[in-house]
């Protein structure tokens, strides 16, 4: 058994330390070491996006990142999206538009949508659909998800001006 390595990183703005075997994914470390179980494992092969997190400003699949790679890096997960008890506008719009059913894909889609709106506050519907092409949802048929994202984008633009 390979030795566990000591990792220091910043997760949702907080410094964290944990031990991880070299072959452990960032997804497993988030869930099992740090108790952040919002990120889900749908496929474990980069296809579904349920494990999406933002690593040093880049949207990635945490199932395809080793936890040891996070040494000294910033990780943002779904747990950091709401501001304390106040939902992020994306979360609020997902509720209003009923953009989820079982909810398994939802954390990953919210994190991916947050990354989209950070990079492009005014996406076209087609840009939003392409950006989210790596997030699979087996329940909703995507339409309500896209409507919620477009609506949240509009609201966030209002807040900005």
């Amino acid at each position, binding site marked *: 058994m*390979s030795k566990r390595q000591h990792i220091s990183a910043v997760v949702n703005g907080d410094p964290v330390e944990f031990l991880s075997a070299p072959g452990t*994914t960032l997804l497993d470390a988030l869930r099992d070491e740090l108790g952040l179980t919002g990120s889900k494992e749908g496929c474990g092969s980069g296809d579904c996006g349920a494990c999406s997190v933002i690593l040093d400003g880049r949207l990635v699949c945490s*199932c395809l*990142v080793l936890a040891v*790679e996070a040494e000294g890096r910033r990780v943002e997960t779904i747990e950091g999206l709401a501001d304390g008890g106040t939902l992020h506008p994306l979360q609020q719009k997902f509720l209003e538009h009923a953009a989820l059913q079982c909810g398994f894909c939802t954390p990953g889609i919210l994190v*991916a949508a947050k990354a989209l709106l950070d990079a492009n506050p005014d996406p076209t519907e087609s840009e939003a659909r392409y950006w989210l092409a*790596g*997030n699979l949802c087996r329940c909703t048929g995507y339409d309500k998800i896209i409507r919620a994202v477009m609506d949240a984008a509009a609201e966030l633009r209002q807040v900005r001006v």
Partner: protein
Amino acid sequence: MSQVDFIAPDSAEKASRALLAAGARPLSGGTDLLVQLRAGRLPPGMIVDLKRIPGAVGIRQEVGGFVIGAATPGMTLSEHRALGLAWPGVVEAANLIGSTQIQGRASMAGNLCNASPAADSVPALVAARATCLIVGTSGRRMTPVESIAVGPGRTSLAPGEFVLEIHLPARPARSGDAYLRFIPRTEMDIAVVGVAVNLTLDDTGVVLDAHVALGAVAPTVLLVPDAAAALIGSKLDDAALDRLDAAARAACHPISDKRGTIEFRTKIAGVLARRAAVIAHGRAEKRS
């Protein structure tokens, strides 16, 4: 997941020494390596993360060309304005790899060294006449991109060797490139055929220089000199495009699989070559 060890060396020389160990493997974005590891398809061994080596991530302009760190993710390529203006075909090919999440990690060097015949960025790099800086325990060498893959999943890299940089050459005025692939849907699929065309024109629109590369129609990506010769000296009239189409088809020796038959792949290679040539020509005319 298989038992592995992990190091993230801070110099190319240390990485190269670590890669001498049996079963040691370089890690760039991990979008192939970690999938293989998780599927239990790799023997146990040392994973050598290249991303902490100076120069392994990032893009710099040098003597008119571009030097791209081996582990630079696709998203960083798409954000680089000058690179996109000079090499739109290379950038569009790299950006076809996977989803936004995959683009946050996947590199062209990983695409190249994974040695899939269907790797999307490789035909574009080959047509661009890109070269690689290889680091090994006995020093450094430059080699053309097309010399890396020798068969599906196999490379010419010696133990201890890895790609540190990809170099795109200086670009004459009135040059343009393009990459097209065929997949049955619009996103997230493996190329059935991929074609890259890179052209340089004179002031009147005549093709002075051309390079054509094909993906997924042979065990490795092919550079097709006959297809390039079909274009040189022409203004991309119908006769030249017919010659290109025929030369591209003649170079194919694909397999039949669930993605496409031999006949289909061969036919599509010709069609995509024509279309990519027209796009590259249009881009070249705009770049004075």
